[in-house]
């Protein structure tokens, strides 16, 4: 009988322990007692973000609490938390997702003269529901020893027969490819994009595998001649701890496609202000801070992304690429066409 009581005691004790740790850690992220905080749900996982949050806390005394996660999952979490959500800011990569957050009705307009002056209007939502933080371009890289860049022109051209068996790109599961295709749907229409995607799938040097960096390596290894990849991975390769990767970065050329036509595809990461934010003023202060000249230069230096603040200084590598013409489409359009883009790639057999 004694054991029976003991057993119950253990059960009760363990339940209380769980509940107590629950309550204790539940305190984080809540603005009780007038403590200055801002709560961020972020799908960007870069060290530089964390460093900038820490700097922000030092300068303003506002503590930044973060939950990092997958963008769509975080949107779902915010939706389900509804009016009780502790989130003040939603930060993510990809204009399509930012606009899907807006469509989901979880954001509200940001009102700040500082932000309006720091971020050009085409890098913000048209109702200011989200503000751009940085951009990255989806470029073509080529083997310097085998490909004459004058052969390269547009994304559209990549589907032509001359690149048969020479093109490399990662799988269609990845957002970067989905938003590229979404932008082409917006510019060229669904039918042409469908044909284009089939051409891309037919030209691939191998079934899609690996990440963006792996495409660059495959170009240098001779598996293919050209690859579609994001600009900042070229930066990461050139700054790699592995000298072999630095050599890869040196052996490839970076080409910005569609300069004569619609411009290079650019995607954006940004911060949206949550509709039911309890620390709205602090949240806006954080966006102001993240888009100021110094923070923007820090984003760019650490991660080789393009700053949204035109005054921010660029790292040498990005300077060396020079000015380029970017696609002039509303990022909201990327969100609208993303599902269609997935469909088109599935149908084209782009794995």
């Amino acid at each position, binding site marked *: 009988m004694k*054991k*029976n009581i003991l*057993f119950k005691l253990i059960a009760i004790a*363990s339940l209380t*322990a*769980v509940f107590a*740790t*629950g*309550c204790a850690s*539940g305190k*984080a*992220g*809540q*603005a009780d007692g007038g403590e200055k905080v801002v*709560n961020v749900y972020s799908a960007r*996982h870069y060290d530089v973000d*964390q460093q900038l949050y820490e700097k922000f806390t030092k300068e303003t005394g506002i503590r930044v609490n*973060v*939950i990092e*996660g*997958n*963008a*769509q999952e*975080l949107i*779902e*979490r915010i939706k*389900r938390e509804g009016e*009780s*959500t*502790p989130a003040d800011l939603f930060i993510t990569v990809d204009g399509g997702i930012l606009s899907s957050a807006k469509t989901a009705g979880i954001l509200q307009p940001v009102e700040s003269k500082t932000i309006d002056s720091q971020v050009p209007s085409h890098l913000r939502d048209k109702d200011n529901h989200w503000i751009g933080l940085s951009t990255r371009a989806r470029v073509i890289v080529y083997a310097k020893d085998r490909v004459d860049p004058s052969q390269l022109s547009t994304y559209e051209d990549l589907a032509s027969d001359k690149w048969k068996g020479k093109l490399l790109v*990662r*799988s269609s*599961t990845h*957002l970067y490819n*989905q938003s590229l295709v979404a932008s082409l749907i917006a510019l060229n229409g669904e039918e042409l994009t469908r044909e284009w995607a089939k051409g891309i799938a037919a030209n691939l040097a*191998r079934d899609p*595998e*690996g*990440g*963006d960096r*792996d495409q660059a*390596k*495959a170009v240098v*290894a*001779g*598996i293919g001649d050209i690859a579609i990849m994001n600009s900042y991975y070229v930066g*990461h390769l050139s700054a*790699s*701890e*592995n000298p*072999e*990767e630095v050599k890869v970065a040196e052996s490839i050329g970076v080409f910005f496609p569609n300069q004569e036509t619609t411009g290079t595809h650019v995607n954006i990461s940004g911060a949206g202000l949550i509709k039911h934010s*309890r620390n709205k003023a602090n949240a806006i202060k954080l966006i102001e801070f993240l888009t100021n000249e110094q923070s923007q230069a820090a984003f760019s230096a650490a991660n080789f992304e393009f700053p949204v603040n035109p005054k921010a200084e660029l790292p040498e590598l990005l300077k060396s690429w020079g000015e380029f013409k970017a696609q002039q489409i509303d990022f909201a359009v990327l*969100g609208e066409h993303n*599902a269609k883009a*997935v*469909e088109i790639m*599935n*149908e084209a057999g782009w*794995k």
Partner: protein
Amino acid sequence: MPMPDRFRVSEFARQHKVWTSISLLSAACVVLPILSVFWNGLRPANENWAHIRRHMLWDHVPPTIRLVVFACAASAMLGAALAWLVAAYDFPLRRLFRWALALPLAVPPYIAAYTYGNMLSYTGIVQQTLRGMGVRANPAWFDIMSEPGAVFIFTMFLYPYVFLITRAYLEKSGGSYVENARLLGRSGLPLFFRVVLPISRPALAGGAALVAYETLSDYGVVNYYGIQTLTIAIFKTWFGMYDIESATRLGALFLAGILAVVVLERLLRRRRRYSETTGRGAPLKPVRLRGAKAALATAACLAALAVAFLIPVAQLAQWAGWTFESVTLRADFGKLAVNTLKASLLATALILAVSVIVANTVRMARSGLHAAIAKLLTAGYAIPGPIIAIGVLSLFIALDRLLAPLYAGMGRGAAPLVLSLSLAMLIAGYVVRFMATGYNAVESGFERIGMKYAEASRTLGAGPTRTFFAVDLPMIRGPLLGGAALTFVEIAKELPLTMLLRPFNFDTLATKAYQYAGDERIYQAAAPSLMIIGIGLASVFILHHMAGSGQK
């Protein structure tokens, strides 16, 4: 003398409502989020469904099946062969291999996938060395990022499930069969294929089922290697088509398919249970190998250990050396480790408590309903993490709404979310997801001791609770510890649930590793990955010693 079932059930139910109600209650908590997945899957299909069915469902089923079948078959063969070697023979370093061959379990498969992918890539050490020696090798030969490559990764890093269970089984009860077969003149490979494999079928099936679940719910490896599995289809639907409804529907279908296979396996196993109860389990005495045979056995174990543990860990160590300064400057590894340990230990303790209570109730009640609940209890393992996570999240938010008056009374009116912002939600998520590893271990422990000891104790006048603590629990100590270690290691390397269900500012080693690996920065991911592996290594080591001291 077995009592008639009906009598036992009524007697059990009358006397021991406490056991039944505790187990039903805890089972309900675990099953609820899983049922919510089914429930959501039953909603009418939306406009995307036709496309998904045509272009994702059917395209993604064959690769999924191929991957699971080959990974399971290869892990079963490798795991059984290694278990047989260390259980049946004595050779140099055998005592080390007995536990060291379980170590690959500590390596998260996606980290292994990135590590091997990079080692074999154009800039990796293999091709770089060959180039340095002037050998011109076709880079395509080293391409591991393919379906066979994924099978290789899953096999090498999941075979320990089979190895551990089979080894324990052979050592404890394989003796009489093997001895008889040896007397009848069988040895070597025929003995292995004709006797050892057939008698270890339950152990093999148990281990292979865990391998299958892990493979099915994996996202990291298949995403990086570009394999179009059903999990990928679910994520494409959710993250690419922004359609969580269809994604959940896919998840429900997926789960239904898996449950069907599980039920089938159960039915097949039921027939076989006879042979187990009549079998006289006797410990297996290892035969001493000498000369070339001994060297060969050592070499085989060493080769497996090298490929599945030593080589990738050495490579990670080199990368961690490259990036150690830049990563450690930014990460508080002490705190990451404490967070990882805290969450994993709490969840493991809960899982084992629930497992023991439910498994004990099930085996005493022996009703179909109880068994069905037990099966549902472990279904969380087969569902992709994010789908479970959403189920748990909804449940906790609903719970917070329900408790809002209580919070207001406690003066927390301004912040109505308490539980869903706490570690409790993450722990609950782990419990739902990883019941299987704990429960299966406990169940197999109970199966092995059978009812005779408990019945003897009851005949001598002890109640079921006293019997449980005085007789049953000590007897399943080994499997319990084994289950604890498996579950603990699983949770320490878990990713998708941790990402979505964690409270503010709660980073673990796994989330830190992913922060880098997800951005293709495997060198930076090396240090936190090594720490995860270190924690796994420590737990396997501690387990080995605790289990060892228990035997003496």
